[in-house]
């Protein structure tokens, strides 16, 4: 049983050269083992924040600090020198899965343990029996071990996203950042992927920060929600308090985008389990 990492973001700002800040002095603290939703309309800075945490992007010069556990990913607009090594602790799940389509599912998952494999073996793609067994177990835990030897490109979106989660597991990440992991999936796969993230969080204690386009999923799967609007944190608290009224206050007209009655939402809302989960929120409205 691994334990999750904590996350601390302090005064993070990013401008991308435009006058409107993509992130405006964002503060965020996540305790080890929490599962937190990050919501907001498109362009509110969800992806940008996650990409800063992972050190893909540097914040504005002199601004902010990101720490995962005790390790500083970036500070004062400078990404840590050993960022590649630090990323091992931070799993990242992308909206478009970001698998290598021409490689097998197995190799894609094995890519998660490259940092633990000596270079001479990793560069010729040779892995030991134990390493393959570990990848196999990860695939089994997300329920697609039977697809291990297929090319990743032949899988459906939901299956590919599960491969990506398996990769983060093999990586032994202690926090998983998921950037809109279900935005490209059909309702059934979306629910499946969220269930898996919730289970990893619950059973292995891995911290999960998941950005979501739609509020319903946040209320269903995460106790705590952080809401962004135009790069600012406008809400940080219990997910169940996020009812339509509060959201309308936070987002005005843009709220329709986050509450829209697409089939995704319908499928989730009609699910008895989900309806159960939504009841407190509805009651407090």
């Amino acid at each position, binding site marked *: 049983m691994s334990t999750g990492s904590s996350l601390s973001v302090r005064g993070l700002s990013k401008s991308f050269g435009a006058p409107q800040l993509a992130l405006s002095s964002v503060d965020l603290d996540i305790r080890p083992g929490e599962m937190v939703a990050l919501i907001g309309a498109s362009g509110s800075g969800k992806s940008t924040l996650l990409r800063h945490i992972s050190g893909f992007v540097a914040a504005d010069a002199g601004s902010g600090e990101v720490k995962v556990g005790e390790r500083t990913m970036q500070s004062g607009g400078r990404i840590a020198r050993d960022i590649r090594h630090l990323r091992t602790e931070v799993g990242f799940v992308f909206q478009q899965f970001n698998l290598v389509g021409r490689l097998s599912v197995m190799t894609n998952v094995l890519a998660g343990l490259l940092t633990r494999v000596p270079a001479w073996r990793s560069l010729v793609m040779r892995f030991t029996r134990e390493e393959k067994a570990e990848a196999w177990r990860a695939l089994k835990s997300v329920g697609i071990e039977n697809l291990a030897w297929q090319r990743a490109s032949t899988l459906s979106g939901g299956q590919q996203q599960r491969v990506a989660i398996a990769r*983060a597991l093999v990586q032994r990440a202690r926090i998983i950042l998921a950037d809109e992991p279900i935005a490209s999936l059909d309702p059934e796969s979306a629910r499946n992927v969220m269930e898996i993230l919730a289970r990893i969080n619950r059973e292995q204690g891995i911290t999960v920060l998941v950005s979501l386009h739609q509020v319903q999923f946040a209320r269903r799967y995460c106790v705590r929600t952080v809401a962004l609007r135009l790069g600012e944190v406008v809400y940080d608290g219990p997910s169940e308090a996020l009812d339509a009224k509060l959201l309308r206050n936070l987002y005005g007209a843009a709220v329709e985008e986050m509450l829209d009655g697409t089939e995704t939402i319908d499928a989730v809302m009609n699910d008895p389990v989900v309806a159960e989960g939504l009841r407190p929120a509805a009651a407090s409205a």
Partner: protein
Amino acid sequence: MTQAATIPPGALSPPGGPRRTLAQAFGWAVFALVLLWAWKGADMRPLDLWKDSGNMKVFLAEFFPPDFREWKSYLREMIVTVHIAVWGTVLAIVCAVPCGLLSSSNIVPWWVYQPVRRVMDACRAINEMVFAMLFIVAVGLGPFAGVLALWIHTTGTLAKLFSEAVEAIDPRPVEGVRATGSSAIEEIVYGVIPQVMPLWISYSLYRFESNVRSASVVGMVGAGGIGVILYEVIRGFEYAQTCAVMLIIITFVSSIDLISARVRKLFI
């Protein structure tokens, strides 16, 4: 409908839309002038083709029937030619992989890819024949000079093609590999190479084909292979033998084309 009626006529064509401009006419005029100028420079005398057609007939007649008496030595040298192409191409592929990556703008910073690209340009700009003549001075007459010539020139060509493939990749899988904490080289091996592999193989096979053609020419300056024989029989006015040699080259080159087309299909 009512809305359409309120739009003033002509409003639907964008401002500054298509106009047959003076600039276009000028462009065509320049093109015509260039053609005329080049006609003089290239000493174009199409009438001579007709005027001297009698000579041509006599000349062509000397090619037939082809004289295959020396076929054993032709075949031996043709195989040497293929050997030159094999080694020239393989060495070039080995060098073109790093050079191609180092001239890709999405892999390395500009102060790396700009100089590497210029070096590759230089390798490519000079014809194999020229390199062959230089290497003959360095390593003496024979096939090895041909290999070196093909190697340098093909490295320049393949590096450019390889880097163009790399620059066209989908960056997302690479980022996926990066997110696992891998090193920069692992990122390339796992994220970039699998994406470009089919194109790289296809380009390499294509270069092999054209190197078989080139290898038969570099021989003409003394760099080994069938080219040496071709040069000798042409200089000796042995047109029937020339014809036989040309037929052998055509047969080899076409069959290699066919085979490599088959192989290419396997990888795509």
